């Protein structure tokens, strides 16, 4: 009876392991980001505006970005009532390397080969 139980347990473990490996690579069943969005009332704006108490102008460029901004979405049409585009330089100012609110996605540079 005991050996039968061990065999059954091993079988279940073997059957489940590929699924577990797959799950590690697949998106979570309920992504953390489900409620995340760039919309004005979404989490992103809530975090920067309400929690961090930033004004719109702290990130948004009212007069638009300069023509020499190396930004693919430079000429992207803005949403209605948008306070202007955001330059990634504004993000980097707070989140760059050695800044108070450094984030993992602006990583220290790798040596050039």
């Amino acid at each position: 009876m005991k050996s039968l139980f061990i065999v059954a347990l091993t079988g279940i473990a073997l059957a489940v392991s590929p699924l577990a490996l797959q799950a590690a690579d697949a998106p979570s069943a309920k992504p953390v980001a489900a409620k995340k969005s760039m919309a004005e009332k979404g989490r992103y704006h809530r975090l920067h505006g309400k929690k961090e108490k930033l004004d719109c102008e702290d990130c948004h460029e009212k007069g638009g970005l300069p023509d020499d901004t190396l930004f693919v979405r430079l000429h992207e049409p803005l949403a209605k009532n948008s306070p202007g585009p955001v330059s990634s330089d504004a993000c980097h100012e707070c989140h760059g390397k050695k800044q108070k609110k450094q984030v993992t996605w602006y990583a220290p540079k790798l040596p050039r080969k």
Partner: protein
Amino acid sequence: MTKLARLIDTKRCMGCRSCIAACAVENHFTPDAPWNVMIEYEVGTYPAVKKIFTTMGCMHCEKPACKATCDYIGVKAISKNEFGAVVIDYDKCIGCGYCASTCPYGTPQLNKALKSLVPGKGPIGEETIPLSLRHATHRKKKHVVEKCSFCAHKMAKAVADGKVDRIGKDQEYTPACDLVCPVQARLFGDIDDPDSAISKRIKETNAVQLRKQFGTSPQVYYVLEQGAKS
């Protein structure tokens, strides 16, 4: 190991936008969500003025900020393929736009609506291929993010044909934008091979990566015209 990279020579580029047209046709991007754009601006003071043309798409960073953000929020829709190209899985993307907000180059495009390349005229060229027969990067959906994939479908073909060594050399295994430049301002190839044409040209021209302060180590290098921004 093959690490693909691109070199763009702004000293040669004359702003004709052939690369953009080629990309549009090859990857049938929605005009509102372009995969390749031209940034043009003037430098100098009269009479010594000139125009700088910088064509930009995805930089296929070694440490992509978009992927880091996407992983951080648990979506995991962005990955780097075996050649170092950053690709998006449209089935996993939830269209939150966080990648677009963190990319230093403003590359990811949230495609709000699928539109034909020639609006009002129906599908043309690659758009006529049934969805099921297309490469994953061409199975587009609305409300998900898309961007340049280094023509991942051509790389996949090179792998299938056993011609990985011909990437950047043969037409069918080289990104469309790099094939059409009339002034040879673009070069594509393996930077892990010190003898490749691109490795040599990066060295000869002292080509640089743009916006290095973000620390994402892009795999697109630029030869900068005097006065051009980096």
